[in-house]
């Protein structure tokens, strides 16, 4: 399985996908065609960045903001950030580690797999981690 989270950038991911398909095609006598089914439609996307105006300075504020922001903000900082910055981690984990000095919590947040479920599920997990840390008195 190709896991998008394992690639440093989109170009590397693209090359892996092409390589997997190329390898598959080499083993076929007849190339299948979606004559009866729906064709695959390639869609290009463009992100419009909108500052939410929300700034947080503590873990408690971070947790509360996470609860309130549009889910697109969760996508932007959790999923898109990995590829955008090419640093192999998301914005949330980076801030928790370097901004708040909470490496253990950052490691948990870094390990959240946004592809394992919905973005709302990922948001719930992040809030749960924050609650655990706050309860433990971090």
């Amino acid at each position, binding site marked *: 399985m190709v896991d998008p989270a394992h690639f440093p950038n989109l170009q590397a991911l693209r090359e892996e996908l092409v390589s997997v398909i190329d390898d598959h095609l080499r083993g076929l006598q007849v190339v299948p065609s979606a004559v009866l089914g729906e064709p695959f*439609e390639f869609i290009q996307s463009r992100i419009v960045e*909108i500052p*939410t105006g929300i700034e947080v300075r503590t873990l408690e504020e971070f947790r509360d903001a996470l609860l309130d922001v549009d889910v697109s903000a969760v996508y932007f900082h959790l999923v898109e950030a990995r590829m955008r910055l090419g640093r192999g981690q998301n914005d949330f984990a980076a801030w928790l580690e370097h901004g708040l000095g909470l490496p253990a919590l950052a490691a948990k947040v870094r390990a959240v797999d946004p592809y394992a479920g919905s973005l709302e599920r990922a948001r719930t997990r992040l809030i749960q981690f924050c609650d655990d840390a706050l309860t433990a008195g971090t």
Partner: protein
Amino acid sequence: MTMIPAQLEAYREVAPRGTLELLARLAERLRGRRFVHVNSSRYGGGSPEILNRLVPMLQALGIDSAWEVIVGDPEFYAAIRALELAAAGREQHISASMLRSYEETAAANAATLPLDADLVMVHDLAPLPLVRHRRDRGRWVWRCHTDLSQALRRVWHLLRRDVGRYDATVFSLPKFAQRVPVPALIIHPSVDPLSEKNRDLSRAEIQQGLDRLGIPRDKPILLQVAPYTASADHPGVIQAYRLAKKYVDCRLVLAGGGAADNPEGSAILAEVRQAAAGDADIHPLVLPPDAAREINVLQRAAAIVLHKPIKDDFGLGVAEAMWKGKPVIGSFAGGIPVQVIFEVTGYTVNSVEGAAFRIRQLLDSADLMARLGGAAREYVRRNFLITRHLGDYLALLANLTG
């Protein structure tokens, strides 16, 4: 703290959290820009239904928005009707004088309508040639609400020249688009959860509505809301109901319009009535075009909503039913598979037998109906509410006007 206009604040209870703040922040960046929509009618479904709600919301957010309507003579409207049918793939005779009327009407309207704006969005075929008269200022987008993929070659050849004069096109689904020489953007249509067709109704309102329509509530109701056209496949729906009824008792309500003003509709309705004769549990209803409340009542009273046309545009009636927490059994036509996620928000089926099997399965399990219905409502909340649509239009304005 971001200020949310009162008109949008009403959506806080229904939109996903954070949505209103996002819309307000995006609109703040675009304040002062002028965004003009043009179509050919203020009434009816499609673009009028959505513009009636979206334009005031854009204005409330501080976007200088307007909605202009082109007008023409009877020959112009006859030309539009023929062009729309040809664009949907039905053979039509389009005379030179019809085309002349189409083009001259656009020229006359372009001379009088205030189309000086940062972004002009032209909806559907009727105002399409307005773009020939665009001035230097501003960007122009053609918003096509229908499926163009089967357009007759000669007609598409004519339309394509005008489409190429726009800066971009917007389609509801990738498969609805033709190859165009400008960027084709995808924006799904939406439902307004606060409109008369979708707002919450009390039990008493639902009961009164059913009483007025003569529908008893003594057994589960299967519902299809679709105009009386051949492509809506009413016979297939009746057959699926009959197959399912051998195992589970239920009623079938067929609600539609389009029978009064065209011979095809009258013929289909007569066939449906004939098929229903002798079965008191089949209710063919003829609804007027403004029957928003009645449709709301029926969708809320239904146990399952069926929507299995052979051909369809986006099929937004599916999202309307899903918003009311109803599992939908749908065909693969148009935008139905984008809304009905198999075994998550409902079932997509290929056959009458498949539809009958899913009716039985759902009516046999209240838990399954509740699970799929609940997921359906949440799916619509995230993807098909007017607040998402508003955000898409603001993003388009931001993207195209820099």
